[in-house]
């Protein structure tokens, strides 16, 4: 066994921080009035882990190649840590206002990030499954965190049931794959299937070998895809998304729309492009259909939503469709396609977290009780530009970016995605993607119409805590910077995927 402990240092740090937060909360912070210490510990732990990442030697395999640290894993771990720390920042004041400022939140949040980091590095289905479950179990808890709120309870329960169902499908797929190939290790499966392709091609021209056309292999592929599509909220498995996103605490929803999605996609890259690369003809077709359905359904249903949180949920479904389009393209143009996927995931992380943060910051006066409650509906946004022009402008940036209007990250990201589809001779897919972006402009810009062109209908207030605004500025700046200087990041994205193949 090769014990190169440095490769898992960031994970060790996150674990220690999580345990530390739980301990500090239990023995110290619980008795204090100001509970910001929990968040400070969490943020510094994530910061240290983040700073460690670039210094680790990429391309290390430890634990008999269960765990691999390649540039792709490092890139995704950075995405998780960035979006995780943004979530911690926006949560501080939100939790205080909702009366749930507890250490458990940060502890479980850190564990969910740990699960994602493990998924990004996993080279074996055992580790993928455990990372996935660590992440999912944490999110069951987080989505039910406002336990006095019935909506939050229901969101947790629904996520738990459908998530358990998807995990079971995923697991059955793994078990069939294990039976057919004889291993659960991704690089071994890849080698085995490629070997079969070659020997099959040698023996009978044009006919693939027995293993590759094996019906059980196709079934296991379908089940693996079902499990992963659930995690990234792609269409036949998207039903949970709007309800869970709506019911969960907004800070959790923001993270949930970014972290697990990114983690699902990194596993998808490894499983589809590496382990099942030999089956690309099969999964390409399935995934292309899923991608089209996901984009179209997400966008069309989003138009009908009056609740902004629900609308953003459907919009996140649509974005999963765009990213799937990139994965389909990478079946033909490996590097360009997967680089565009990786690039889009980071851009999406910033703009989507940003949009959810504005929603989280905005509060309105409840007419009956006179208390300030979270704003939810489109109406609540009306006239925001007059009351708070800065927040309105930031929302404008995020909405432009989600629509794909230059000079924002969303535009460049979509450009790379659709270009890779064109490179892969999938022009029709790119056209469908462009049409979908045009449809999405309707509901993204509708919010801006409410913000800039209508008169205020309710009394609004915007959270002005400094932590939240630090996060907002970072996300807005990142969205703009990526949009203006895309090459910088795209080169990093390209370098990170090259090592995959």
């Amino acid at each position, binding site marked *: 066994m090769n014990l190169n402990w440095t490769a898992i240092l960031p994970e060790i740090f996150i674990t220690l921080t999580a345990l530390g937060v739980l301990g500090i909360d239990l023995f110290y912070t619980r008795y204090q009035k100001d509970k910001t210490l929990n968040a400070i510990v969490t943020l510094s732990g994530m910061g240290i882990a983040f700073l460690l990442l670039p210094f680790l030697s990429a391309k290390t395999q430890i634990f008999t190649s269960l765990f691999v640290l390649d540039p792709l894993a490092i890139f995704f771990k950075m995405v998780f840590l960035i979006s995780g720390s943004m979530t911690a920042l926006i949560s501080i004041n939100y939790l205080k206002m909702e009366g749930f400022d507890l250490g458990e939140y940060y502890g*479980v949040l850190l564990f969910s990030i740990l699960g994602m980091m*493990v998924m990004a590095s996993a080279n074996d289905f055992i580790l993928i499954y*455990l990372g996935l479950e*660590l992440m999912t179990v944490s999110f069951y*808890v987080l989505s*039910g965190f406002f*336990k006095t709120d019935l909506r939050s309870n229901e969101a947790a329960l629904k996520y738990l049931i459908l998530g358990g169902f998807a995990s079971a499908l995923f697991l059955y797929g793994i078990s069939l794959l294990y039976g057919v190939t004889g291993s659960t290790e991704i690089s071994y499966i890849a080698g085995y299937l490629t070997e079969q392709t070659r020997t099959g091609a040698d023996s009978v021209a044009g006919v693939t070998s027995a293993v590759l056309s094996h*019906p059980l292999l196709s079934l296991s592929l379908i089940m693996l895809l079902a499990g992963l599509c659930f995690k990234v909220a792609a269409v036949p498995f998207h039903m949970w998304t709007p309800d869970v996103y709506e019911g969960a605490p907004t800070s959790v929803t923001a993270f949930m729309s970014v972290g697990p999605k990114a983690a699902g996609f990194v596993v998808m890259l490894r499983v589809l492009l590496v382990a099942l690369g030999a089956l690309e003809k099969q999964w390409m077709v399935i995934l292309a259909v899923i991608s089209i359905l996901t984009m179209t359904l997400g966008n069309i249903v989003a138009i009908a939503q009056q609740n902004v949180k629900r609308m953003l949920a459907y919009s996140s479904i649509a974005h999963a469709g765009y990213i799937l389009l990139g994965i389909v393209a990478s079946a033909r143009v490996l590097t360009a396609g997967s680089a565009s996927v990786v690039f889009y995931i980071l851009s999406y992380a910033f703009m989507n977290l940003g949009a959810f943060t504005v929603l989280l910051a905005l509060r309105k006066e409840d007419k009956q009780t006179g208390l300030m409650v979270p704003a939810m509906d489109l109406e609540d946004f009306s006239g925001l530009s007059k009351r708070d022009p800065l927040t309105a402008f930031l929302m404008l940036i995020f909405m432009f970016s989600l629509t794909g209007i230059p000079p924002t990250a969303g535009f460049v990201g979509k450009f790379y995605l659709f270009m890779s589809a064109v490179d892969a001779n999938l022009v029709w897919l790119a056209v469908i993607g462009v049409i979908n972006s045009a449809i999405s402009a309707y509901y993204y810009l509708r919010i801006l119409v409410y913000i800039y062109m209508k008169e205020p209908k309710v009394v609004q207030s915007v959270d002005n805590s400094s932590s939240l605004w630090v996060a907002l500025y970072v996300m807005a700046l990142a969205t703009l910077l990526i949009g203006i200087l895309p090459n910088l990041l795209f080169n990093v994205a390209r370098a990170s995927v090259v090592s995959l193949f």
Partner: protein
Amino acid sequence: MLLVIIFTIFAAITIISAGMVAFSQNIVYSAFSLLFTFFGIAGLYVLLAADFLAATQLLIYVGGILVLLLFGVMLTHKIQEVNLSNESMRLAPAAIVVLAFLGLLSIAIYRTQWPTVPVPELTPTTARIGTLFMTDYLLPFEIASLVLLTALVGAVFIARGRVKK
């Protein structure tokens, strides 16, 4: 021949009680049928030379998970009829989808030439599994412990009394 009979008994127990779990109208029957399913599966594990896992199956599933579920049944008996499932999925379409899938899978299994390797002599597996956990599979082992810790923290947090607003 003897093995086939034993196998048939265990398989029958497992399948029939699994059917009871999923289709019984009485939730208490379902929960107790699950006991027999877990037991039958443990029997199959013994036939497959997985002695350690057969014991673990009984300890964790019967002793842990089933007891948890029974507690759930008793604590929430009043919400039995509350509609929390996917209403759109009626029995007929669900059955069609599932049976089609089942048929596909069964055909696939039967058409497969499974490797008929000479089955190894059975030896107790516990020591070997223990060694693997402490060497090759140390990392997954630690992650699994963190999964349990998270579930513990989360379950205690959610289930304990109200927080003061």
